[in-house]
């Protein structure tokens, strides 16, 4: 049952990801992208990392997907015509995939089953974030602020014209 759920999720995720990568319609690709990420977050739920899953939805669906969609809108003038596809990429991607799968299969230590762990509470994450990872957290905070300002400035229209 659980495994079936996993395969369904994985198939949904990979399928929509593939759709996102190959769908010639930009907007559909973006929406597929969103679905793929919902899949990823479900995978996180499935793995017991509820918080990460929620954050994933929050960030990717609530923010990144909207941003992408906006960007598509703002650059729509030629967006629909740009349907070129570079087949050499497929070769590289497949080669990498093959390499990865080969190395995963080659490592026997990977074929293990998950141990029983007590569920990870949000409070625990918060405590760890605020104690052991407080400096990285601050760094990320600064990074986000800087990115916000940077993005604003980059995207702002030139008032001179």
């Amino acid at each position, binding site marked *: 049952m659980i495994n079936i759920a996993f395969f369904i999720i994985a198939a949904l995720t990979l399928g929509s990801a593939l759709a996102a990568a190959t769908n010639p319609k930009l907007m559909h690709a973006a929406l597929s992208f969103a679905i793929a990420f919902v899949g990823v977050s479900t995978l996180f739920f499935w793995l017991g990392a509820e918080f990460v899953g929620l954050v994933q939805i929050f960030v990717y669906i609530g923010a990144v997907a909207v941003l992408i969609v906006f960007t598509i809108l703002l650059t729509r003038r030629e967006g629909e015509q740009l349907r070129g596809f*570079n087949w050499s*990429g497929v070769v*590289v991607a497949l*080669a*990498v995939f093959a*390499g*990865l799968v*080969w*190395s995963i299969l*080659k490592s026997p230590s990977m074929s293990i089953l998950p141990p029983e762990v007590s569920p990870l509470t949000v409070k625990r994450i918060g405590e760890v974030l605020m104690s052991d990872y407080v400096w990285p957290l601050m760094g990320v905070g600064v990074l986000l602020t800087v990115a916000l300002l940077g993005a604003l400035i980059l995207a702002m229209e030139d008032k001179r014209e």
Partner: protein
Amino acid sequence: MNAANVWLIPFAPLIASLSILLLGKSRRAIASAPAIAGQVIALTMSIFAFARTLRAPGYREVHNFVWFNFGDQSMQLGWMIDPLAAAMLLMITFVGLCIFVFSIGYMADDKHFTRFFAYLSFFSAAMLGVVIANSLLLLFICWELVGLASYLLIGFWIERPSAAAAARKAFITTRIGDMGFFLGILLLYHKSDTLLFYDNGHGCLENAGLLLLGASATAIALLIFCGAVGKSGQFPLHVWLPDAMEGPTPVSALIHAATMVAAGVFLVARLYPIFSAGAINGVTTSLTIVVWIGVITGLIAALIAVAQFDIKRILAYSTVSQLGLMMVSLGVGGVTAGMLHLLAHGFFKALLFLGAGSVIHGAHHEQDIRGMGGLRGAMPITFATYAAGMMALSGVPLVFCGAWTKEEILHAAWRWPVSHVPFYLVMLGVVLTALYMTRQMIYVFDGKRGPAAHESPRVMTTPLIVLAACTVVLSVFLTPAWPWLDHYLLGERAHVDLWKIFDQTILISLLLVGAGIGLGVFFYREALRGRRQDPFQTAQPALFRFLANRMWLDELYDYTVIRAARMLSRIADWLDRYFWDGLVRLVGLLGQLFGIITKTADERGINSGVDETTVGARGLGRVVSSAHSGQIQTYLGAIGLGMLALLLLYAWLA
């Protein structure tokens, strides 16, 4: 009025002073009222304090308290009532009151009427503080405040540069002495660990404290005496006192009669146990020095007084001379005599100054005695009271207080075991005193009628009359027949012995005074018929000029001490500006030099090397850059292939 409350006495004038200042300029009409009120309250309380000292001979009451703590140590202050203090309190408040009243008339049309009374009250308060202090520190504090007050009052007519200069001179000169005083306090404190005079046997004037001082007592006494020298205008720091006449006349009266100059003598009297510590036969090194300073001062001042023409200046030098006399008395062991003379002097010198003020006021602010003359008719009350003062000063026996005290001093000087020279010199001083006072009287009141003058208003003459009466009444307590005041100060009971009046010294003093007055009349009365030229001046022009110019002492100081200090400061300034700063700049220059060298080495050596390297690197970059197409996806593909390569490497290694 017990000792714990005695602080109220200086406090009353202080409050008066503050309230006047707060009243401001606009309340001119009532500005004098708080001052007078303060003084009256202080006088009343002084009388109560005095009455308390009458309870027992040598009555002394002390109130000590902690002023502040430093670390776990404490600094104590205190005040006291004893006969010395009580008598001084009475004298200061009473004379002060007279002067205040007089000032109302004298300063009536001055612009800064209110400020004047504020200063006067402040002055009075500070002086009263000196008197009641039971701690050398408190005494010093009040002492400095007295100095400040005198500075303010001497420089009262601020717009006159001469007044400002005189004020400055007074402040600095007395401060020179005070530096010695200050060091004396430090030494005393260091040795005895207390600055209280009396403290249940632990005070520095009590036996236990004096024992701690030991051999350093002489040094302490001499250092403290420096302060007295400054404040009481002793040689060589007397130069400020005559200049201080730049202030309004009541100020002169207050400074020269009741307060400031008295402080020095009072200080010596108060600290007499230290001066006489370890005395053999009543003689110590410090006291000997006091005597000689006093003698020199007395004589020099008396001599200079003979050659002065300014009415106030003559009185000023007479003050200096009388103070010298008191110092002699203290030095030779006649403490009470000195103090008595101080008290008596307070009354009659105030009287004389106020009289002079009255004269100046009447003669439209003429101060040169050559410009006066024949004022006897125009100003009868002034004349009469002035004459009483003059006789008290000269020491005309029997009814004038000055005579008895002077006689006591002569007595004491005679008994001094070290030398009789002071005795003779003091006698000379007495003669000279009588001489110059006679000269002054004749110049001012005798002779032909000078410019139009008028008698002063009632508010000015009343204090004169009161003071004149006092000089006479006071003599009752001073006669050898019933030396009540003398014994009061000594802490004994006085007995009446009428025969003592006819001592042999009274003859001597009669003789001396007679000689002085006679000579004066002889010299000046006749000569003055013709006017315009002082007979002494015609007879001995060189000597007269020497004396008239105050023995060139001011100039001497000016050319030596002051010039030297000034030069020193200029040199220091020059050094600071150019030498030390130059050194610093030199160091800076060295740094700069080093910088230049480094810079050159940097530019010529390292920089060019780097340049070559970069040129090479640029060439290499050109070669490499051709591989960069600017296509993101090419780069990404390269990354992917690189990753694949890494994977393969990993697999190969594993």
